């Protein structure tokens, strides 16, 4: 027995409410973040991630208060991402009660920011979020590039090389989202997940595409993810975190039950 694989429900937050966009378009309201976080905590979630999908200045203040409210009631690790651009943004979120802060576009714009943040606050609280899309033609060996701004902006940077570089710069964990799979409910991009997980020495969270419980198990067993992140299968009551863990445990994955 040893370290458990983690299940992390992700709450996309806009204007103080949990929302979930299907491929970032169709937004449905899924409730009050504090209530949703408490529910997941009771179901046995290993961590909770909040993603500020608007990432405007006003929204960041809302996020800060939201993190404070959740952190005073839910005693499991909390990660906050979306619009984190400066050391001051990181500090504010950590002081509000976040344990980890996710950095995405700002890392692409200025990789040194990741180094600066990890030197200041420690690698353990800096998660680099990577949005990757497959760019190889059919028949070619698989190749992924990173995209920013919610998957809209290509960067021309190879995803595997980028993952390694971010670890060199101090990232303590990677949150890897397949932009091809996100919102499709057809499962993780397992090849991408495995390629990144095998290339780095820090934990990798697989994200994007979970539609059924088996997808989570596959992410760990085939994709070699250390943690799996999902939103919609939990938000709308299709499955509980506990059901997901039991399913994983039944296939030999060590989980916290």
């Amino acid at each position, binding site marked *: 027995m040893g*370290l458990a694989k983690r299940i992390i429900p992700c709450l996309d937050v806009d204007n103080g409410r949990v929302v979930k966009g299907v491929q970032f378009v169709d937004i449905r309201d899924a409730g009050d973040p504090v209530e949703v976080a408490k529910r997941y905590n009771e179901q046995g979630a290993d961590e909770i991630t909040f993603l500020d999908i608007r990432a405007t200045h006003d929204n960041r203040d809302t996020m800060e208060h939201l993190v*404070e409210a959740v952190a005073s009631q839910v*005693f499991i690790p909390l990660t906050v991402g979306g619009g984190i651009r400066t050391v001051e943004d990181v500090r504010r979120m950590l*002081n509000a009660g976040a344990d980890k802060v996710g950095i995405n576009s700002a890392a692409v714009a200025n990789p040194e920011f990741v180094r600066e943040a990890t030197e200041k606050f*420690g690698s*353990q609280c800096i998660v680099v979020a990577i949005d990757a899309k497959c760019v190889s033609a059919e028949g070619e060996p698989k190749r992924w590039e990173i995209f920013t701004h919610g998957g809209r902006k290509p960067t021309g940077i190879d995803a595997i090389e980028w993952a390694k570089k971010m670890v060199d710069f101090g990232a303590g*964990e990677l949150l890897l989202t397949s932009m091809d799979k996100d919102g499709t409910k057809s499962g993780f991009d397992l090849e991408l997940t495995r390629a990144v997980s095998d290339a780095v020495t820090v*934990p990798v969270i697989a994200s994007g595409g979970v539609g059924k419980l088996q997808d989570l198990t596959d992410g760990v067993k085939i994709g070699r993810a250390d943690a799996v992140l999902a939103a919609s299968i939990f938000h709308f009551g299709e499955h509980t975190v506990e059901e997901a863990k039991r399913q994983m445990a039944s296939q030999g994955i060590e989980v*916290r039950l």
Partner: protein
Amino acid sequence: MQHIAVIDYGMGNLRSVSKALETVSNGVPVEVTSDPERILSASHVVFPGQGAIRSCLAEVQRLGLTDVIRQVAAEKPFLGICIGMQLLMTHSDENGGVDGLNLFAGHVHHFDMNAAPHLKVPHMGWNQVHQTISHPLWKNIELDSRFYFVHSYYVKPNDDKVIAATTEYPAKFTSALYKDNIFAVQFHPEKSHHAGLQLLKNFVNWDGQP
């Protein structure tokens, strides 16, 4: 009324520690403070910490807290968490080598990356804590309960008699230490849901006798 002091030296998220303590303290006030007076007058002292050990130690020294910590660690129920545990050791290999407070003889080492294929460091997530002694802080906590860890270095005391728990990643390492009125844990009880809150509750109710 006496209070519980959480030593604030500007490193890491102390809000979670204080909120979790407040949840279990039965109304006893919890103060996050770097004021030596408030630390010395507390009934219980928590020494948390996260980040790089060299900066942690530098801040403790800059705030003039080294002797204060030594003093409370000699006489009050004292709980070290994560870096707050590692700083109690003689020496850490982190940041090119840093001398700690030497309240426990022993060293702090990095996980051996070659111990297993694809070993991920930091050791991050919920792992089992195997209690090796009976202690008031383990009261009502099941053997091998899972607690939340996030660290790349672990403590190795010279004397096995101070070990209160071990954890495997993949080799066995010391995840809790004790000596007289001191208890120290590598995991984060403030982030470990029921088991973590129970440990904090046990600490708040502890008279400092092992």
